[in-house]
């Protein structure tokens, strides 16, 4: 599904990713762990198409060269990034945003756009699954939401847009234990043979709830070690230092 070959990314003449290789197949959950500044969030940004990076190397998503796709096209083709810090956007109504987003994606996928009533019914269902209070949906996007509410809102968007590859950038940060469990349940219930996850995290904590098939350790812009779920537990005990 996602093939990354020798990816290098530079921003403001500072080299962040220095030759990263990754291969994700449908149905797999990959976790990327690593210390601060190792390039974890840069990888997420580059995959989402954020401007400002100079990029070398290849990224293929289901056979399409990602560099050829605009930001919105990546989302339409099925890449979803749950932000580490979801933006507050004053004035933009959450429901209106979600409907615009869903319909833009549906349109690109050749599906019929949803009318308001059908949309509201759908969003109510999805919000309920994530234990999101309906009143948040009629508020301005993320404005005044707590950290946990913002992250739940990201997972809600994920489930709504039905991506093939979901990238979760430190989704566990700022979550209390209940919110963490709800987010993890959201991910687990969405997981199937067709889609894949790339979970970027600092700590083992989230991986207690979402079991990864692979864990990669990122350090100084490269993957220095790959293992199975046990690697995370080992890291929890020994820290990154022994690996770097």
């Amino acid at each position, binding site marked *: 599904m996602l093939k990354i070959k020798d990816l290098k990314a530079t921003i403001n003449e500072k080299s962040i990713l220095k030759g990263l290789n990754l291969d994700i197949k449908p149905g797999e959950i990959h976790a990327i762990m690593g210390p601060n500044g190792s390039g974890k969030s840069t990888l997420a940004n580059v995959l989402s198409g954020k401007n400002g990076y100079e990029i070398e190397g290849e990224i293929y998503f289901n056979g399409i060269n990602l560099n050829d796709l605009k*930001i919105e096209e990546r989302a339409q083709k099925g890449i979803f990034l749950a932000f580490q810090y979801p933006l507050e956007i004053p004035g933009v109504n959450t429901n209106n945003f979600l409907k*615009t*987003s869903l319909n833009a994606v549906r349109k690109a996928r050749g599906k019929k756009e949803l009318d308001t009533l059908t949309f509201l019914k759908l969003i109510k269902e999805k919000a309920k699954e994530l234990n999101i209070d309906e009143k948040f949906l009629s508020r301005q996007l993320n404005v005044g939401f707590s950290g946990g509410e913002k992250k739940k809102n990201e997972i809600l968007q994920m489930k709504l847009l039905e991506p093939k590859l979901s990238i979760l950038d430190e989704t566990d940060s700022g979550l209390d234990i209940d919110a963490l469990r709800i987010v993890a349940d959201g991910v687990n219930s969405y997981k199937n043979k067709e889609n894949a996850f790339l979970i970027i995290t600092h700590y083992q904590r989230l991986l207690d709830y979402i079991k990864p098939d692979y864990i990669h350790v990122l350090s100084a812009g490269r993957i220095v070690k790959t293992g199975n779920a046990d690697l995370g537990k080992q890291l929890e005990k020994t820290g990154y230092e022994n690996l770097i």
Partner: protein
Amino acid sequence: MMQSYDFDIKQIKNLSLEETNSRQKNLDLFFKSGFPSKQVEDWKFTDLNLILSKNFKSISNKVNFAFSEKLETIKHFEHNHIFLNNGKIISSSFAYEDTNKILIKDFDQKEPTNFNPANTLTLLNSALSSGGFSLEVTKNYKLKKPLIIYNYFSKDLDNKILNNKNFIKLNEGSELTLIDYNDGHVQSNFIKNTVDTVSLEDNAVLKNILIQESKSNGHFYKYIKSSLESGSKYENYILSSGLKLNKIEIEINLNKKDSSCTIYSALNLLDDQHQEIKTRINHNSPNCKSYQKIKNVLNDKSRGVYQGKIFVEKIAQKTDAYQLSKALILNDNAEFDAKPELEIYADDVKCSHGSTSGSIDSDAVHYLMTRGIPKKEAVKLLINGFLNEVLENINTSEIKSFLEKILEKQINGH
């Protein structure tokens, strides 16, 4: 380009000799300085003389009032209406009201004497005004439905100037929502110079909503002078995007205690459109409140201006006055000018003002795009969010959703 003015008082019928003379005096005073240019402090950001000389070879007040167009009302909500053609009443209907409680008639042209050389446009208005309406609501009558004033214009208005005076009076305890609705039935290149006098008696409530439905080559100037008595409330919403030139000058006199006013404006300006909102709020009495929120989105080569003055008299203790202007500038060729002014003589007051302008938040655009929304649409969503905020305080849901639709249309360029 050299302009020729053909301003003729004889156009206005049934004037006594005295009225003709007083109008002539206003006209002579107008000709002493002509249309204001940027040398006049109040017009420093809107060089009307220059703008008119670029767009008009000649200007005449010889307007044909003949009218044959089909009159149509909007279907979004039940309302009373007045149809105006070139500012003159064609017909009115107050089907939802006790018609004994509402007085509507042609403006009595005998009333005005102006002679104030400080504003040459109001001089010109006093010299040439014709048409116009006078509306009065009797004591304690609250209109059940809003009133829409439909502004129609005749087709042949190229190089013409319309001068109207209107008078609105709400007697003690009465309430009215008035929607001043301009449709684009005319594409003529013309000038409209309007002077409104608004008088709110004790505890009266007037909500005044100004809508420009479609793009227009109109060059509009409107001067609203209002006076508020105890406990009265005056709310203004300005949604006038689409006019080539528009300057709205609002003077609000909070003359008695506990009166309050608000001015909300949401404008999305395109092409070389130029709009100015100039306010002067006079806090002449204690315990009054004023609140202004002016929002502009500037595209292309457009220009937005806000000049807002809050004046607080020595006796006006416990004044609560607030003004804020925010602009989103989306093009290097667009411009926004703000001139906030506070003049305060009382010592126990709460007055604040602020002005910000900037470009659109690129991180927000990015965020929306990662959700599959194309850039153009993402920007529109953000503009909409930015401007829509001014509608927050409209509590009639059918009017609010109607205004939201108008605003969306304006953001899409009509």
